């Protein structure tokens, strides 16, 4: 009796669920006097709605099925929209890549076009002699061009 009162006091004093749960487990569930202060399973069950007393008024399955069908239809449409969006993105990516390749190729190839190569005609006229030989031996050569004249004089002498 006094133990029940002590438990009740501790239960009221400490409003912590783990503590209270522990008190219930250790004492209340085992104490006939404390259990008498609680509603029995039968008494509680008589006040509650029971499974056998339930009659489903609405056709629950029909509603669930139609909701699921509508849901799957919406999902299919979402999937299609997603697929078309993916296709569109891929299209843009391919087109952009193609454009980049085209522009790069144009810029690269532009420098190698034939007209870009300096033509021989554009080179200023000059006199060239690769070598001069006298008696089968490289000669001692002197090239002379007077100022303001197109005349070029080449004087070659045998190397000593």
């Amino acid at each position, binding site marked *: 009796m006094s133990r029940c009162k002590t438990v009740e006091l501790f239960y009221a004093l400490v409003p912590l*669920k*783990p503590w*209270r*749960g*522990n008190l*219930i*487990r250790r004492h*209340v569930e085992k104490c006939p006097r404390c259990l008498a*202060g*609680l*509603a029995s*399973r039968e*008494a*509680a*069950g*008589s*006040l*509650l*709605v*029971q*499974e*056998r*007393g*339930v009659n*489903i*008024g*609405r056709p*629950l*399955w029909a*509603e*669930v*099925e139609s*909701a*699921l069908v509508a*849901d799957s239809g919406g999902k299919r449409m979402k999937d299609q929209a997603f697929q078309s969006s993916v296709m569109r993105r891929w299209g843009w990516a391919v087109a952009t890549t193609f454009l980049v390749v085209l522009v790069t190729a144009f810029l690269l190839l532009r420098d190698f076009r034939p007209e870009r190569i300096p033509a021989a005609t554009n080179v200023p006229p000059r006199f060239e002699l690769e070598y001069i030989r006298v008696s089968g031996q490289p000669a001692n050569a002197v090239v002379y061009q007077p100022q303001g004249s197109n005349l070029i004089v080449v004087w070659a002498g045998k190397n000593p």
Partner: protein
Amino acid sequence: MDEQELIAGCLRGRMEDFRMIVERYSAPAMALAMNILGNRDDAEDACQELFIQVFRHLKSYDKDRSFKNWIYTILYRRCLDHLKRRRRSAELVKKMGRETVMTTPANPGHSHPPRSLPSGLLEQLKAKERTALCLWANEGYTAQEISEVLRCSASTARVYLFQARKKIKNLLEQGHVSLQNG
């Protein structure tokens, strides 16, 4: 047909198996929902949402766990959502100063369905306590099993159950008029 076979069939996309699951669990689910929510219309909505959610998330069901417990956990969450929605709409109506419209609907049979639970239970017991009590009294659940549905510790579930039983005992002893069922 075995429960696990039905689940496997559902996962393979067999709607017939899912229909059997709905038929098997609709009555206990409705009973629990009515005990938590207190009226039939909301309970039917909650059950419909429950089964749609079950179908969508069946892949994530852990086979080591009780299927019924899993269903009850989802249903409990759906019922809490309904209660929140109800509370919010009640607050909104209160703010708008149109309480009289809510209490005297044009079509009382539909808009204000009769409560399936004694009003004393709804007023005195919290949703968690009603859930714990219903699972204990109707299904014979232990504190541990109740804690799995409520997603709390076994100690906490024990406290909810204890408080619910104590309140009901008090109501019964006082001979509360509104405890008359129906």
